[in-house]
């Protein structure tokens, strides 16, 4: 089974945009109130930015690059590979969002939770970035 490149990009983009907007809004609200990080908001943003912004940036850049293309997205992609990429994407953005949503339920300061999360988030990020590269980098060149 296969899926078109265009369709697969759109579905992956939806997952990543939602996974980016929800934590972004939470962190923005926490920064606005200023009572969660107690003056260390910059550290929180320093953790947030490299964990999600490069991937979103890649997706947006790919869409921007192909914005005026017509008919170029009918290339077929293996459904299996797409599902693997989708599962990894859902896993990564799900964990990333849960790190914020579970903050009130932990007994650690938020910044310490972020640091600990980087230990396993980095592993998944490596895998998902490799898989996304096929959809957004390799095929964007054509």
């Amino acid at each position: 089974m296969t899926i078109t490149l265009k369709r697969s990009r759109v579905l992956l983009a939806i997952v990543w945009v939602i996974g980016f907007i929800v934590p972004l809004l939470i962190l923005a609200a926490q920064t606005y109130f200023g009572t969660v990080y107690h003056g260390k908001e910059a550290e929180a943003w320093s953790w947030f930015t490299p964990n999600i912004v490069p991937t979103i940036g890649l997706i947006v850049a790919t869409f921007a690059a192909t914005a005026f293309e017509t008919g170029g997205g009918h290339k077929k992609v293996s459904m299996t590979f797409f599902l693997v990429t989708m599962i990894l994407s859902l896993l990564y953005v799900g964990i990333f969002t849960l790190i914020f949503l579970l903050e009130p339920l932990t007994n650690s300061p938020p910044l310490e939770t972020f640091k600990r999360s980087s230990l396993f988030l980095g592993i998944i990020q490596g895998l998902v970035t490799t898989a996304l590269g096929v959809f957004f980098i390799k095929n964007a060149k054509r």
Partner: protein
Amino acid sequence: MFDQLTKSPESPPPAPPRRWKYLVIGAIVVFFIGLGLISMMFLSLSGSAPPPLPTPTPYPTSGQLPEFPWPPRSSAFTKIPSRYLMNANGVTTLKDVAARLENALKRGGYGQFSYYSVPRGFALVTRLEQFKRNGEPADEAHRWTQQIATPPIFSIDYWASLFIGTTGRYRVIVFAVSDEDFFSQTTGKRVDVEQADKLAIEGANRLPDVLGSTPYTDRHLCTALIYEFEKTALDSPTEFKENGSLLAEAHLQKILAYLEK
């Protein structure tokens, strides 16, 4: 020579005139009269001497109790009406007051408390307790610990913690019973959270009988002192609050209801 032999000896001195005799007798009489008067004066004074001042009876000693930091410096305080503490009939002693306070504390879920001495009275101190924003005690799993209670997921407290942050609130309630005049907290002794955490354990488990048998009079006053502490973040220290976030009555909501009955 014979004239000298035959000469009669010198004639004796002339006898003093009679008035001298009378003067001597009069002096002797005056002397004895004066002696008598002086004696009578001494006797009369010793007979009507006021009794010695009684040794003032000291206030029943609370020396067996450890001392509570006094004067206090609490976050909030309020007076407990005496009608909640006094017996309907007969004399009320400090022991009766203590029993009434203990009963109200137990029914309010305060199972651990201890006694300390304050000038001319006693203090009954509860354990350091975590409480919610509205003054109610935290859930039982976190009530007696300093670990900040986690809210139920997706509850109002959860969303508040997510966007505003987590705050730990703690308090110690002290009932100070004394007939000493009103104290000012200007120079009061502060209690930090480490001390507060040990107060309910390091005090006495009961009121000494000597102090407990003292009558609770109209001059006595029971003051509820609230020592409030706050931890604004999980990695920040727990600090004493100079001014409580709630009125003392809000802190006592679980206890006053049982005192009023």
